[in-house]
């Protein structure tokens, strides 16, 4: 099937098999390997992207469903090799160790801050509930998001 998808502001036209998951389309067809596959069952959030502005797990959608959609992945955050404010806050607050969860965590945090510029700690924790981190214990991630908020 032919699909047209806008990813990080660039429009791609591709022929995809309907059985192809969106995460594989993004990683393997578009070579945007920032988004990760952790569990492949909708539980870990490593594959989180923004889909028409909504945070979604891209292992739980088919690429063909995204025909006509506007997608943002973690690659959309930095520009000209400079980290954006949220990424810089993650770095400053040691909000990552192995980094596997980070692309998804950043996109959930971005979704949260897009909808709520000054979240409380409870709202931050609820905002990243769908993203599992095995390393940090979350404390520094919450600190980083707090620092990036207004």
């Amino acid at each position: 099937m032919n699909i047209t998808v806008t990813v990080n502001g660039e429009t791609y036209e591709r022929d995809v098999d309907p059985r192809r998951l969106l995460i594989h389309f993004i990683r393997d067809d578009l070579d945007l390997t920032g988004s990760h596959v952790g569990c492949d069952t909708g539980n870990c959030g490593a594959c989180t992207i923004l889909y028409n502005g909504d945070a979604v797990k891209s292992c739980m959608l088919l690429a063909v469903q995204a025909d006509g959609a506007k997608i943002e992945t973690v690659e959309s955050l930095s520009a000209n090799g400079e980290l954006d404010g949220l990424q810089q806050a993650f770095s400053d607050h040691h909000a990552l160790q192995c980094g596997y969860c980070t692309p998804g965590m950043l996109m959930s945090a971005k979704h949260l801050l897009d909808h709520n510029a000054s979240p409380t700690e409870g709202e931050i924790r609820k905002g990243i509930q769908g993203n599992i981190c095995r390393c940090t214990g979350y404390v520094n991630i919450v600190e980083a998001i707090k620092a990036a908020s207004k």
Partner: protein
Amino acid sequence: MLLAAVEYARPTSLADALAALGRSENARALAGGQTLINVMKARAAQPDLLVDLADVAELRGISESSGSLEIGAMTTYSQLMDSSDVFGTRPVLSRVAGEIADVQVRNRGTIGGNVCLSDPTNHFPPLMVSMNASFTIVGPSGERTVNAGEFFQGVYITAVEPGELLTKITIPPAQGDGFAAVTIGKDGTCIVNAAATRNGETRFAIGCVGAVPVTSLDDIDPPSDVHGSAEYRRHLAKILVDRAIAEAGG
């Protein structure tokens, strides 16, 4: 994961969606995909055609009139949380939607998919039973309405037959509702849940203790698993029914 080969259609009207479903006995509706995609990954179901309901306008929208709510099957949990018609009339629906899994699942998962799945641990089935909701089902032979007591027929089995679609859920007015659950972690899968609705008398329904929501505490025969023994679930059921009824003001 590579799924088994499947065809895909995205109709833009209810009539076209029904026609597409009629093309194959093994066709399946795709709503939020928050269960169906996993089921296909596990090869527990292998539809040959997915009929994506995303663009079917007739399945969307929420309306309220004299306290009665009509909710389109494709309404997501996030939309239930944000709809002033919903939290203004039946706040428990918005709250329970906000207790399902996480932001990403709530942005995709739909109330129609939640009830059509008829998973005994899902949040909405007991609430639909206590609220005495009615379900509008459309198929090749026309439209019919089924009430919640008859809608849920077994584990993964509802009154929706192959080739049919749930289009909307209608919730009659009431004086108060309650919902209580003990879950595996915050906003996790329910070990037992219970809902209550007061409308003169108070009705309640319990989830996770039988194939479909149960409306009596007598002779319940809950399953035992790593999350709780049958005895523990029986104990929780009594407590959660009390909490739900108290919240409903009954």
